């Protein structure tokens, strides 16, 4: 096992981690401000990926597609906020789960209707389809490094948005007391639509970026959605800092588990069995991580309003 391989796996972990962060940040932002649990977040991820792939296919430019994906996801988010989510803020979580679960059914079937049942393919933008040399030999795909860059930029951007801008101030105020900021003259409906659209756009960003690494297909958002849930449960629901730490942790545990666990098992078992059990353990690893974190801190690593 060379140093380059380990380094490569670490970069893969980071890439998965930052994408999960972009996904989880929107989820946790919406929960923090509106108290809404949104299962349809994965659908917005799918919308971003589909529009990006479609427009990129029509225009030949990935970047135009990316822009279209972001706009489409944000627009879809704003529309479902105004039509559906708005009625759910005062409901209990059970109603929110069911309503947003219904939205998943609608989005999945609607997407299949519009784009067809075949998966779309999104090419890595020309110029980024190369790899850069790693210290210690071997190369690493440039596009994945760009994804890491996007993730870090999103984290910094969100931090600045929330801590330095007027909108961020309103978001923070909305988290602690929604009646009060309404009384102070902030148009709460517009604020909520805006926050939801930002969260949706983040999901769309993640979907479009990851769309170039895998096939763009109906239901692609669901596994990511559940990983994002694990992330925000570990980090503390509503905490963006928690989402960042949780995402990196989950990225590390998942990627390294898949890369190394079967080798660990191979020390004690014959190769075929070691591969099987290694894969099984690796797919359970992040949930075990979650269980351990919760046994230790039931409200996550960075509890909000503790």
């Amino acid at each position, binding site marked *: 096992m060379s140093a380059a391989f380990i380094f490569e796996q670490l970069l893969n972990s980071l890439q998965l981690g930052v994408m999960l962060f972009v996904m989880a940040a929107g989820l946790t932002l919406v929960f923090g401000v509106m108290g809404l649990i949104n299962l349809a977040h994965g659908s917005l991820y799918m919308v971003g990926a589909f529009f990006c792939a479609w427009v990129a296919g029509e225009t030949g430019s990935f970047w135009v597609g990316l822009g279209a994906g972001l706009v489409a996801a944000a627009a879809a988010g704003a529309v479902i906020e105004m039509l559906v989510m708005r009625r759910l803020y005062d409901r209990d979580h059970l109603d929110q789960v069911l*309503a947003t679960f219904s939205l998943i059914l*609608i989005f999945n*079937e609607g997407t299949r209707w519009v784009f067809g049942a075949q998966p779309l393919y999104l090419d890595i933008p020309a110029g980024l389809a190369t790899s850069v040399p790693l210290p210690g030999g071997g190369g690493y795909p440039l596009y994945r490094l760009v994804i890491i860059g996007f993730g870090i930029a999103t984290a910094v951007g969100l931090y600045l948005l929330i801590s330095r801008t007027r909108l961020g101030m309103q978001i923070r105020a909305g988290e602690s007391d929604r009646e009060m900021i309404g009384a102070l003259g902030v148009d709460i409906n517009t604020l909520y639509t805006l926050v939801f659209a930002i969260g949706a756009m983040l999901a769309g960003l993640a979907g479009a970026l990851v769309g170039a690494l895998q096939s763009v297909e109906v239901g692609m958002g669901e596994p990511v959605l559940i990983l994002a849930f694990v992330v*925000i449960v570990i980090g503390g629901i509503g905490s963006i800092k928690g989402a960042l730490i949780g995402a990196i942790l989950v990225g590390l545990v998942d990627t390294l588990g898949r890369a190394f666990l079967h080798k660990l098992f191979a020390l004690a078992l014959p190769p075929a069995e070691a591969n099987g059990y290694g894969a*099984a353990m690796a797919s359970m690893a992040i949930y075990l991580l979650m*269980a351990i974190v919760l046994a230790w801190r039931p409200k996550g690593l960075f509890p909000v309003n503790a």
Partner: protein
Amino acid sequence: MLEMRNETYLNVGIALLLLAVPLGAWVMDESYYITVASRVAILALAGVGLNLALGFGGMVSFGHAAFFGLGGYAAGVLSHHAFEGSVFLNWPVTIDGSDATLTLWFAAILLSGAVAAIIGMISLRTSGVYFIMITLAFAQMIYYLAISLPTYNGEDGLPLYLRSSLPGLDMSDDLTFFFVCYALLLLAIFLSVRIVGSRFGAALECARQNETRLSAIGIAPYPVKLTAFVFSAMITGLAGALFVELNGFVSPSILSWHLSGEIMIFVILGGVGRFYGPIVGAALFIVLETVIGGYTERWQLFLGIILLGVVLFARGGVIGLLAGKARHD
């Protein structure tokens, strides 16, 4: 009291209707509808299980497919070994496969109950939205375990060639199989009624409404909720075992989170905390699926729209709509 009596009439009507459909189908020699009725009874049984946790205990479990699937796998794997004539386990004790229905049911209940005890112990330390997400995540963990373990064909699943045998009954006969499912469904509802009406049920109700108050009168909420959670999982696990026998097939799809969502929908559509609600919910769901599915392959789209409408505008489910508000909360 009048409303309560309305609900009682309605419940009897629901139970009789579910019985009448397969009998009618049997008379008209339409075996497809007998199978549909068995599906409704089995899914309703899964809902009855969830209702105990969700409706009466206020524990919004989004992971009940885990217990449904584990029950299914327990039954499926044992009967697979019985068919192959191989052993399930050699060490520390030898466990053979089995094709005796009662053994399969017992295994399903035991496995889903044991796993629910572990999941519940961790999950019940949290509440609210954390509980929803954690139960979902644990169910996914078991789903991925079933997919990645090669022993039982992973994602492809296991076909089962024979129905198990229950002394004195021909389980391979569709109508007999329906009666067995129906009897178990009514038994589970009866058990739920008894549990909810007991001292334990009163404590559970109180834990749902106000844990602090329950602690103040000297009852710790955690063991009460955990017990109810385990019972709930056992009932759903039994439903899983029946489902696998009905289909003659077990695969990770019965562990998927879509199924968790659907079981939840059965409970909500019928009415949360209504004993016969899950029958109505499951029946409506299957009818919608069959009817809309007959017109268009996009039935999920319309199902989604209908469900969304129910959640947004028709709170209390169908029984709430027909029998009025009966619960005091």
